[in-house]
């Protein structure tokens, strides 16, 4: 291993010693997701041409509203009026970026590969809202934050991108890489304090070969 090429997940140290064999059917489960490829896309939302080109290339609509995301081959989060985050299976982002760049040639846009800059965790279960609400300034009430919505907001003393995938509820939480350990510890602590068991489960390996 030491001589070969391998990827090391930002939470590898944190997960050492975690068995991944937590109890099932807990009130809230925290799962560390394997890495995705991430592209940050900026462009003019009022340009029909830009929106069409991106949709055609990704074969998926860009979320039209503020605070929405679309799922498909990619998950596309709308971060701001002219900013989107495209999450894809790790290893495909290069090819996706290449196709976007080719099709957008001559247009005004920005496409930056930000793979490796953030990690995703999934918090799921009937009491997941409570676990988050202790350190999140966003109104998480189902009336205010529905499935299909995403938001950039705070998580304790850091920031996160949070998306509500379904009404289980399942929250996908994206945090910056260097804050990953803090966020994971905080979520585990918050879960423990309401007698919900948050057990970090890692669904990928700690040292994946590059290819």
């Amino acid at each position, binding site marked *: 291993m030491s001589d070969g090429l391998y990827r090391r997940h930002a939470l590898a140290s944190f997960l050492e010693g975690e068995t991944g064999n937590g109890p099932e059917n807990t009130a809230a489960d925290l799962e560390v997701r394997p890495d995705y490829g991430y592209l940050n896309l900026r462009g003019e939302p009022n340009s029909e041409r830009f929106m069409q080109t991106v949709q055609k290339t990704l074969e998926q609509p860009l979320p039209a509203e*503020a*605070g929405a995301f679309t799922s498909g081959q990619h998950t596309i989060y709308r*971060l*701001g*009026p002219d*900013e989107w985050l495209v999450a894809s299976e790790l290893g495909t982002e290069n090819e996706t970026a290449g196709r976007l760049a080719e099709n957008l040639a001559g247009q005004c846009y920005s496409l930056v590969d930000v793979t490796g800059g953030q990690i995703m965790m999934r918090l799921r279960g009937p009491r997941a809202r409570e676990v988050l609400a202790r350190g999140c*300034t*966003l109104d998480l009430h189902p009336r205010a934050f529905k499935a299909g919505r995403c*938001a*950039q*907001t*705070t998580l304790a003393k850091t*920031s996160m991108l949070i998306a509500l995938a379904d009404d289980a509820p399942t929250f996908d939480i994206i945090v910056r890489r260097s804050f990953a350990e803090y966020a994971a510890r905080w979520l585990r602590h918050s879960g423990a304090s309401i007698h919900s068991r948050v057990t970090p489960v890692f669904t990928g390996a700690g040292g994946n070969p590059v290819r």
Partner: protein
Amino acid sequence: MLLINCPWCGPRDESEFGYGGEADITRPADPDALTDEEWADYLFMRKNPRGLHREQWVHEHGCRRWFVLERDTVTYRFSDDTT
């Protein structure tokens, strides 16, 4: 704590925002043409009114967009019709 209405993200907690001071101060087009007094006025002098104040905010922990709000510096109430 204030609830601040981000024009893009909607109402959010004050702690998600950064404050940018008085709004509507335009950078002089030709700074070299200004006297030292005029330049200092642009640099340092602010109105600091008691009452209505147009000011800049940035949704730092959200969409990172800057916007302008009008706030009453006595009651902290934001005017509804500003964005």
